């Protein structure tokens, strides 16, 4: 009898829970288990991970039994660009300073949209937004974000 996955969604979550549960169970194996009366640091994690593996198995069974909708198309472009924009912000914040990091974040994330286009209007919005954020957060609220990053400060040191 050939097994067929009838609900891809259900199968996907079974994989997700299974992976998490197994990883949790294995990693928590290094922590002392203890007894119910004196629980070690590994007790609760292993019980929870074990339950998660059970949920994964039940989910797996269901994915073979019941028909379900397929997983819709993944918007790789948006996922990649949005994630990259946030990571670039993190990379640039200390080195290049807030205004630059923010500009990069805004440009990269905006390009995820199908309406992305360089126009005077969008450039004006970009400049205004960077200015407002810098003023409100770095100056007004005193969040320690450099205006000029450590990579660039030599240029301004003279």
């Amino acid at each position, binding site marked *: 009898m050939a097994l067929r996955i009838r609900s891809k969604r259900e199968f996907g979550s079974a994989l997700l829970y299974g992976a998490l549960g197994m990883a949790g169970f294995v990693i928590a194996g290094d922590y002392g288990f203890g007894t119910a*009366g004196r629980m070690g640091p590994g007790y609760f994690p292993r019980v929870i991970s074990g339950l998660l593996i059970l949920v994964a198995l039940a989910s797996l069974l269901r994915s073979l039994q019941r028909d379900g909708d397929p997983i819709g198309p993944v918007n790789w472009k948006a996922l990649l660009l949005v994630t990259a924009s946030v990571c670039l912000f993190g990379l640039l914040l200390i080195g290049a300073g807030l205004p630059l990091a923010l500009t990069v974040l805004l440009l990269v994330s905006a390009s995820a949209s199908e309406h992305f286009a360089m126009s005077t209007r969008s450039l004006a919005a970009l400049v205004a937004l960077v200015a407002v954020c810098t003023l409100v957060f770095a100056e007004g609220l005193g969040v320690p974000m450099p205006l000029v990053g450590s990579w660039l400060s030599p240029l301004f040191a003279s």
Partner: protein
Amino acid sequence: MDMLSNLWMGLTVASSITNLGYCLLGVFLGTAIGVLPGLGPVATIAMLLPLTFGLPPETALIMLAGIYYGAQYGGSTTAILVNLPGEPSSVVTALDGHQMARQGHAGRALSTAAIGSFIAGTISTLLIALFAPALAVVALQFGPAEYFALMVLGLIASIVMASGSLLQAFGMILTGLLLGMVGTDVNSAVPRFTFDLPMLSDGINFVVLAMGIFGLGEIVANLESEGERTLLTRKVTNLMPTREDWRRIIGPIARGTALGSVLGILPGGGAALASFGSYSLEKRLSKEPECFGKGAIEGVAGPESANNAGAQTSFIPMLTLGLPSNSVMALMIGAMLIQGIQPGPSVMTEQPTLFWGLIASMWIGNLMLLVLNLPLIGLWVRMIAIPYHFLFPTIIALCAIGVFSVNNSVFDVYAMALFGVVGYLFRKLEVEPAPMLLAFILGPMMEEFLRRTLLFSKGDPSVLLTRPLSAGLLSIAAIMLLLVVLPSVRKKREQAFQEG
């Protein structure tokens, strides 16, 4: 009258110039961000949270509560005008509210929502003042066993009330519990699941998790269907309901308030269920149920009152027991912890000005919403009209700055990016992430209380069933779980979620 004198004290605290000012600012900003399509209260609060860090605890909480009501009200404005509900609880408002707007009655729909919310808010604020102290007295007698049982009940309730499959919701709870364990174990000082990263030794920050999953994940999902949004009316006129309207909405408002107040106290996301419940109730009671979905004003008044009442009373378990009943309250607890306040029954006795000031400010906040929002509707309409491709980069920027400012840590920014991917994955698999956030917050407390319970009983788990209070709570949890597994109830539950 103890309650009245306490409320009076609260009013004096809340009406100091500073507190009034921040309440107003919170309500204003909350509405401004909340009207933006696709942003629910959780994302709004998480984004604006950093603004409150420098404030004294009272003022910070008052401002946050203001942001919450504002965000909720803003959400229903968007639901009515563009049919884009930002959160589950305004999905129902969109059904009839948007139809009213299409027929040229946007003004009446908006004012009905505002008036209903205000009446519901006023009544449920009184309920909080009445019941919170009583509950806090009971809570003082709670031992670890009772707390553990209560948390189990809360998590079970959130499984029951989550939309979609029960098994998936259970999986999300476990995932949340597991994520909550990341960090140093309090009892043994053993770092767990930290992968030797010192940044993880204090655990995952809940703001990072919430913004990644509810903020970024949502944005990527929204970018899949960048259709044109049609904003119906640029000018909203006729803001006052007619006398006939008043006659029609007063019943739904009263029933919605009652239903919402009860459901809000229950752990597990009361507001959304309250508005779904109120909608089907009004439809059933109506003489012309066929009008529902075609612009029935009752279908706006009832659910809007219910969800506001539910939003208010969900503060009761948070303030008295330190337990969040939904993701917004989980965020509020996080905010309190950042301010150095441990939520729980002692807050009321040890910091009465904070407790009563917050309660009084809830009412003031609702009043401000009523007074502010209708005249400012033109501004909100213009906010909604901002195209999404301008909005979402701004939202991402605010999330990134916000997350950084919590711990001044770049690591948190990367972690948010990662959770954004996870959040998108959850949406693709159609699992609801709200129970996970709840479990994430409750997890560490739950483990601690379970450990203590079993330490006192020398490892014998039967104490959970021999102490009357904890046995009672656990049996309620068991009954709830049994009920939803029953096929007939299960069908009803699915129906309730499909009305939307």
